Structure formats: C-alpha cells, structure tokens
C-alpha cells in the first residue's frame, strides 16, 4: 500500500492531486468526467463579493502548447455562491477549498470573516492574490507587504481554516512574496497563477483577446512554474502547492521532487477532462518506482550539484 496523504501546515489531504480554481467550474461541470471520491481536493472558481460579468470575448486564445485567458473573474457573486453552489459543493466527497478574491484588502477580510461563519465543512481557504485579468489589478501578491497584511488579517478573522495564498509569478522574486505569506500565517502557497502575455492578429492589427492582455497557462509554462516552486521549496519557506502546465504523471512527479507538497491541475482539465483522476490512479506506481511507499518521502528530494 502506498501512502498518498500529504500535510501542508494544518491542511491534510488524502492525496496530493487537486483541481485548480477556474478550471473546473463549481463542481457540477466536471461531474461526468471526474470521480470526486478520488480527488485530493477540489477548488471552485474564484468567488467575489459582487457579481462580475467578466471580460468581453474573445476570452481565450490558444498559443503554442498553451492557453492565454482573460476571463475576468466572471462569477455571480457572494450571495449567489452560497445559495446555489455551496449546497452542492458541500456534498462532494472530497476536500473543498474555497477560492476568493477581494477588490481591496478590506474586502478580502470581509469575505474571509464570512467564510469563517458559513463555510462549515470547508477544508481550506485559498486567497486569489494573483488574478492578472482584472482592470485595476487584483494581483495583490506583487507586493510583499500587502501580501503579508492580507494573509495576516484573513487569518485573524478566519482562524480555524487552513489558509493558502495563491501567488502570481509576475514578480522579480517569488520567494520574497512566499516568505511574506508565511509570515502572515498562511499554511501554504499555491504557485503559480498565470503568466502575463498577449497574442496579436497582425493582419488586423488587433489583440486577439477582448481584454488585450491575458494570462498564459498550460504545458508552455510548466518549466517556469516548476522553477518557481523549486525556488520557494528549497528555502523551506512554506509548503507549496505546485500549479502550472501539469498534465502528465511525469509532470506531477517533477513537481513533487522539486518540493511541491501537492499539485493542482488546471488547463489540462479543459483538453483532457478526466486527467486528474487518471493521475491519482497512476500515482502509486510512480511513487513505487522511487523505491518508497510514501508520497511524503518524495517531496523535495531533488538532488542538485553543490
């Protein structure tokens, strides 16, 4: 028997494979493709205080081995979420991690306080400090001090839930931001959200995205995300959840060896909707190949030259 369970601060997961926010809807969309009873955890699409229509289409465009998106946090808002999505999410036989975004620090804190009241049964709270696609910028995690403050204040008002800070890679040194999240009291960081990018139709001299710029995801960003995860993990700053281009067993194992304590599958859900469950089923064999029976023994075992 291979022990797949992992521990990230106060968050315990039965296995390290989760689906990423914004890539699997609110739980119903993937129901036919994903056996929730297998998943390590499920993270619904970011919820905001007020309904947000999202950005004008086109919202996605495919690039070489990648996807550029500018959805713009399209969601029906806080009240709708608790009324319509939460009752269903509560029934899912997996760890549900709520993902929220505030327009301001105060709004983050207000939402986190409400989560503490209403989110009975949640496994954790993930703060989306890193959405690149919203006018005015919701990428709070470009600033270490703001990251520390938001995490600390959210932890104060929501003390009993494990807290995850989702970081943007669009910074000079992500380890500084990860350290700030750790100091604020986060249990883990998710690294990374999407990389800023754009695509142009030169014949029309127009951007291909309605929002002009967007965030790049998918296999194209995997080496970048892997390096970001390794940079945080090697300094043992805080447990890391690796996200970015993960689609195969090799990808999962590379992130674990690099130091991720868990991984999230994002864009791959779009083109291979059952991928997360297949990876979970194949994980024990891959772990066994390394001559161990515990996922935990694999995490952060990368050997680099001195």
């Amino acid at each position, binding site marked *: 028997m291979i022990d797949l369970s992992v521990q990230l601060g106060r968050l315990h997961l039965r296995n390290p494979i989760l689906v990423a926010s*914004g*890539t*699997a*809807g609110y739980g*119903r*969309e*993937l129901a*036919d*493709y994903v056996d929730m009873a297998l998943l390590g955890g499920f993270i619904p*699409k970011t919820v905001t205080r*007020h*309904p*947000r*229509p*999202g950005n*004008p*289409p*086109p*919202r*996605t*465009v*495919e690039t*070489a*081995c*990648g*996807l550029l*998106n500018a*959805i713009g946090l*399209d969601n029906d*808002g806080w009240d709708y979420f608790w009324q319509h999505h939460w009752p269903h999410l509560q029934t899912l036989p997996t760890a549900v991690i709520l993902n929220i975004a505030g*327009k301001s620090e105060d709004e983050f804190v207000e939402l986190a306080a409400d989560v503490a009241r209403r989110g009975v049964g949640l496994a954790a709270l993930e703060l989306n400090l890193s959405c690149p696609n*919203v*006018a*005015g910028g919701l990428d709070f995690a470009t600033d270490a001090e703001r990251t520390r403050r938001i995490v600390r204040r959210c932890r104060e008002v929501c003390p009993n839930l494990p807290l995850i800070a989702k970081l943007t890679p669009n910074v000079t040194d992500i380890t500084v931001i990860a350290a700030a999240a750790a100091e604020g009291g986060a249990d883990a960081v998710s690294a990374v959200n999407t990389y800023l990018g754009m695509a142009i139709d030169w014949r029309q001299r127009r951007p291909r995205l309605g929002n002009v710029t967007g965030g790049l995801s*998918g*296999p194209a960003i995997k080496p970048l995300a892997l390096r970001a995860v390794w940079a945080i993990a090697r300094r043992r700053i805080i447990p890391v959840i690796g996200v970015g281009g993960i*689609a195969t067993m090799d990808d999962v194992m590379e992130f674990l060896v690099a130091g991720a304590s868990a991984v999230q599958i994002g*864009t791959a*859900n*779009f*083109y*291979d*909707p*059952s991928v997360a469950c297949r990876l979970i089923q194949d994980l024990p064999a891959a772990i066994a190949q390394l001559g161990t029976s515990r996922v935990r023994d694999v995490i952060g075992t990368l050997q680099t030259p001195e």
Partner: protein
Amino acid sequence: MPHLRHVRIVSQEKLAERTYRLRLICPEIARVILPGQFLMLRLAGTNDPLLGRPFALYDTWGDDSSSPLGVDIVYLVVGSMTSRLCTVPAGSVVEVWGPLGRPLPAFSELEQVVLVAGGIGQTPFVAYTHWLLGSRGYGGQAARPQARRVLLYYGVRTAARLAGLTDFQTAGAQLYLASDDGSVGWHGSILDRLQAEQPAGPLIGCGPEPMLKALARLARQWQRPCWVSLETPMACGIGACFSCVTRIGTAHNWDYRRVCVDGPTFEAALWHDAFSEQGSDAPLGSTGA
C-alpha cells in the same frame, strides 16, 4: 456518460473545396447524440494544437438508425487543428468527448421550417432535417415527423464550397442556394435571397456571426420565431472555462452565458449581440471594476 474517448477514424472523404467528412466509430455517443449537439475533438499525442475543437453532429451512421455505429462530422480546413486533421489517415485514433450542448429546437406538426446556413454552418442541418421530417430517429428515439417541409437556404462563397447537397436531398430538404460570386444559385448573400422570397415558418440559422445577427434582426422585423446556433471559440466544451460566452438577454438586461452548456442554439430574440454593439452598454450587476 460523456467522458474522453479514443475513437477510431473509419474514413475521411473530401466533400468540397477544403471540406471533409470524417467518419468515427463511437456507438456510445452515436446512440445518444441529438441534432444540434456537438463533440469536442482533439488530435491524439500532441500538445500543439493543445485544445480540442467543437464540431457539430453532421449525422449518425450505421445500418439501423436506432443503434447507429458512429458519427460523421464535416469540417472546413481553416487553421491549426483542421489543417492537421485532414492529413490524419483512416484507422488512426482521435480524442473525443461528448455529446455536448443542447439540441436544436423540436417542434410538433409544423407546416414548414426554414433553415439558414452560411458556409460550413450547414453542418448541423442534415441530421436536423432528418429529425424534423421524421426520416431518421436520434437519441434512441423512434423517428417522428415534426414538420411537413424543411427548406434549406444555403449560402456559400463559391460553388466549389458547396458540400453535402446529396445528403440534404436524401434527407428531404428543399434547397435554395446562393453564392457570393454567382457561381451557383442566387448571386449574392443567402440573407438577400431569404428576404426576397420570405418563406413562411420558423427560422433556424447557423453560420458566420454577421449573417446570424442579420437573421436575428430580420426575424424580429418579421415577428418570426427564430433560433441561432453559435460557434464561439471554445476551450473545453463542458462549461468549465467560461471562455465561450455570448451576451444573452435576462429579465433586466443581459448576462454572459456559456454557449457550450446553455447553447449552442439560442432564441434569436434573446441574443443581445444581434441588437446592440459590443461594449456599448453595461450589464446589470456590473461593478465597474
């Protein structure tokens, strides 16, 4: 259950200029799919192109229509995925998930239905004609006539692009053609022809967005029931990515709706984009952020 399947290509047949019919063996999908629904299709073993592409059901195939063996799709070679797809030989495997989306509208005891197709937008209408006229059953249901006549108004750039005419004739549609260059049928747009001839009955359109917008406005002017089947770019086809949205009217104003799960066919009167320019007004609940 519509999970990802590895599906074998039986044949690829060129139907017209840059237009191919792909025949797939997939009895599970073929038995349940309805006209107007679509599949996501992805090339196996490559990450470039990365995403699947949606393709409408052209028709089911197999001797017995109550338990068909597979589906046909018909595609136009336009870009990265289709230019590779047309080189994939019979016997190869592609990745497919579906059926997805909602079917085209069903009717009962109608005199006449008018289908309006622009270019490759004709693809959902072969199965739909069979379904409406009751010459073939779908989704495990026995064939049942829903309309007495189906008129297909079908516009193309040029005669070389006309695809599947015999399939439409076999299905029983009456054809009304138009071409931009006058090489076949009416010289001009299919909407011009429709406007000139004003056939009776509900209108159902599929094709380029400008054509569908014009159709929706025409239907409003004629006070005619009308549906449009949209082809917004899709990344997942299953409602997970929120990329395929279009503006659909709500009780108060409009909201973005996912074409893959709430469509691809919408009542034209609710299709906000047809009646206003993009970005010219804000939706209810807009935070201005």
